[in-house]
């Protein structure tokens, strides 16, 4: 049965990181000449699985066959020898060298003399075969991100890759570059190459792949699906999974006055590509507005615009009528906007400073923590001790460096700081991500407490269950635009919009009127 031999077959792959089971007996197979999408949320274990295949990680358990022969990779070099190449999310290119030089880097040939003209020609020929247009003589820094990605692909093809793994290749691309990439991928499968596409974007996966394997929390959510016989809705359900709902009691309360007003906001991401296109949302006092959406659709950019950490190119954000967008972050802090950032160690805390120093980060400017030019150290320590008890931060002392805290405890430090200032408005980005069940409940309880106290809360989350149980209304963001707002916890409607459907199905309207 030679016809049935897969290009790659992975069986029972187990990969453990300290405290995390990243891959739990995962099976995966890739047929010759197909584009196979590996779909899942952040942290589902997609990249880990493919890093195992590419020889970067060694699995604790499991076996891999390439074209029917068992293999055991010790390094990426082993993998490429067997024709497996991976294009990572972050490019590994030398900016000051040319395309050709980057491709030849690390190879045994050419040996001493570079003979660049000859190699330029060889690479140009390879480019033509796969429809990858990049000038071989160009320096990397002159190239656009899309072109740099093509160089990474060329690098792998030149090394004889038969199987190409692309890790979230569209994350850095502009829309028209995505189309070009897809055309390239198709021309490669036409030449007999097999491709694994790692993604969490349903649209893309539906548009380009032949088959789809869904990973959820380190495991495969069922056998591979044929793209033609599935739907975005079915995939979204497989990706997110149905979990037990947290029984969190939420009082019914009428929202108060308008606090946070986001008017027609547009902004760019770090690459300078449009990330938000005219987002408008209104949040009232005592209301939690959930913002649902698959990660990377503009949520973090929106949170940064509101908190003054990112400029917006159009529109404005006001808190109680005062503008906070396009102004120093200080203005939003003074307007009593709390911000629970997604990146707790990179943004939300200062790793080598003490818990005390981390707890006063937002309040150190005001009395009573500071007096004149100086900080009242004794008061700061009393304040920290009080918060440590109140928010149950488990640490040897308030002088402990925050980098030594566990994820849950660090989040408690951040929450204690942000919530103790009696905020008028709260921007919480993925506040429960990566926390264990007990900690999650604590965070959710705190958010509801703030709602009761009259704060206007914008809760950005990828956990649909969380949004359904906490939020009064759920807005869905997709590719930087709000597709709609659901007020009656209609999970199906949210799911459809998360998948990019603009219109809410008819029965939604019927239910409302009827």
């Amino acid at each position, binding site marked *: 049965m030679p016809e049935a031999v897969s290009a790659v077959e992975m069986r029972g792959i187990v990969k453990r990181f300290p405290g995390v089971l990243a891959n739990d007996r995962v099976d995966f197979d890739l047929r010759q000449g197909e584009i196979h999408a590996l779909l899942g949320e952040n942290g589902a274990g997609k990249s880990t699985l493919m890093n195992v295949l590419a020889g970067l990680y060694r699995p604790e358990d499991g076996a891999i066959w390439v074209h029917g022969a068992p*293999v*055991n*990779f*010790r390094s990426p*070099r*082993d993998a*490429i*020898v067997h024709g497996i190449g991976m294009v990572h999310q972050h490019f590994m290119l030398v900016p000051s060298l040319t395309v050709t030089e980057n491709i030849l880097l690390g*190879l*045994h*040939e050419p040996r001493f003399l570079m003979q660049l003209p000859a190699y330029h020609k060889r690479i140009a020929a390879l480019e033509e075969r796969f429809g990858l247009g990049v000038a071989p003589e160009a320096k990397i820094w002159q190239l656009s991100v899309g072109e740099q990605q093509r160089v990474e692909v060329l690098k792998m093809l030149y*090394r*004889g890759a038969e199987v190409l793994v692309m890790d979230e290749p569209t994350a850095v691309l502009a829309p028209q570059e995505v189309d070009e990439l897809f055309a390239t991928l198709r021309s490669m499968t036409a030449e007999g190459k097999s491709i694994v596409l790692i993604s969490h974007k349903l649209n893309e996966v539906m548009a380009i792949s032949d088959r789809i394997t869904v990973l959820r929390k380190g495991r495969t959510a069922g056998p591979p699906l044929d793209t033609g016989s599935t739907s975005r809705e079915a995939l979204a359900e497989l990706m997110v999974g149905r979990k037990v709902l947290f029984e969190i009691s939420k009082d019914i309360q009428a929202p108060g006055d308008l606090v946070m007003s986001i008017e027609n906001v547009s902004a760019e991401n770090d690459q300078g590509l449009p990330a938000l296109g005219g987002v408008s949302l209104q949040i009232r006092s005592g209301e939690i507005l959930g913002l649902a959406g698959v990660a990377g659709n503009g949520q973090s950019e929106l949170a940064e615009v509101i*908190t*003054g*950490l990112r400029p917006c190119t159009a529109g404005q954000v006001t808190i109680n009528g005062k503008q906070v967008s396009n102004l*120093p*972050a*200080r203005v*939003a*802090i*003074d307007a009593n906007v709390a*911000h629970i*950032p997604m*990146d707790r160690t*990179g*943004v*939300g*805390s*200062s*790793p*080598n*400073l003490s818990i005390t*120093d981390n707890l*006063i*980060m*937002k309040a*150190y*400017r005001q009395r009573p923590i*500071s007096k004149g*030019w*100086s*900080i009242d*150290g004794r008061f700061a320590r009393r304040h920290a001790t009080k918060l440590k008890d109140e928010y149950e931060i488990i640490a040897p002392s308030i002088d402990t*460096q925050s980098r*030594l805290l566990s994820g849950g405890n660090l989040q408690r430090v951040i929450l204690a700081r942000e919530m103790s200032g009696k905020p008028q408005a709260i921007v919480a980005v993925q506040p429960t991500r990566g926390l264990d069940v007990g900690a999650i409940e604590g965070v959710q309880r705190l958010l509801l407490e703030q709602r009761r106290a009259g704060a206007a809360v914008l809760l950005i989350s990828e956990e649909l269950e969380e949004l359904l149980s906490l939020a009064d209304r759920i807005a869905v963001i997709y590719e930087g635009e709000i597709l709609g707002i659901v007020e009656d916890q209609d999970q199906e409607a949210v799911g459809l919009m998360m998948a990019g459907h603009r219109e809410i199905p008819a029965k939604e309207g019927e239910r409302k009127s009827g």
Partner: protein
Amino acid sequence: MATTERIDARRRPALPFKIQVEPRMEVPRWLPITVSVAAVLIALVLGAFALRLAGEPHPFKAFAAIAKELFGSWGGITDVLVQATPLILVGLACSVAFSMKLWNIGAEGQFFIGAFAASAIVLTPVLSAETPGWIFIPVMMIAGVVGGALWGFVPGYLKAKFNVNEVITTLMMNYIAIEWNNYFIFGVWSEGGFQMSPRFPRTAWLPRLADYAREIPEFSGLTLHLGLLFGPMAAVIVWWILYRSKWGYEIRLAGDNPRAARYAGTNITRNMILVMMLSGALAGLAGMAQIGGVVRRMQGSISSGYGFTGIIIAWLAKLNPLIVVVVSILFGALILAGREIGRSGISMLIQGIILFALIASEFLLRNRVRITRVREA
């Protein structure tokens, strides 16, 4: 294209034990001090070795003799303290900048500009020679501080506004400062063609202990000058700024995590410029103290690389302003010892090894090395 390698070959362990390196969770309190002391000891031993190679038969005896000479008499001690004075100030200058992870390599240039600005008050002359000392000296101090701050402002501004690498700008501005000074001592202020300015009038001298020898005979010959007070006073002020003030909190926050500092609403751009200015001001004051208290004229050889030694001092003191004072005294002794040995290269060598050992020891502070037996399979 490439040859297939044997992938399944099991490698035999080459050693019966395994060296494991793992990141440290908590740094014990005693460790940084131990590491600093060890670095100094290692440097002394290697220095002794070099001295032996250079022909000194008993290097450790020589060390002991020098130590006795330097710390055994009031004269020796005051000489060490005079040497330590500029070092304390430049050490503080570097500590302040490094606390915000601004790598100011330009304390040397800031030192020279401080000295130049203070000299300009005397030599232009801005104040006449008859001006009393209680006006003359504060005006010279202000000039030194402003000059140094200006020399710190330029790289600080370029870094804050245009993200220009401050290592390069501060380093290059050292040469500008030194050549600028040379222009004046070779030309404008040259005394009869010599490469130095005329001696300052008495009113522009920082008073020395020896000046009071008539009243207190014990002070005769002691070179200690008023500038010594600048150092510890500045150390206390800098310590207060860094660890007790709002501004210092912002500096430490930005030094540890600039993104968190932005998130906390601090103005990083402004702080960068101000910190570089404070750093430059301290180095400038050092320059003023050196010409006012020791050299008493403007000339080319006012610094024996103090600005660069300040980098080592700041690092050795782990950026703690109070420890900077202690370390500076050690380094003052080291510089004098170099002169005693006659082969002053040795003292530079020891300084270099101390810095080298300290930077290498960062690894030990961050990680812990464990040696474990390899179990036989």
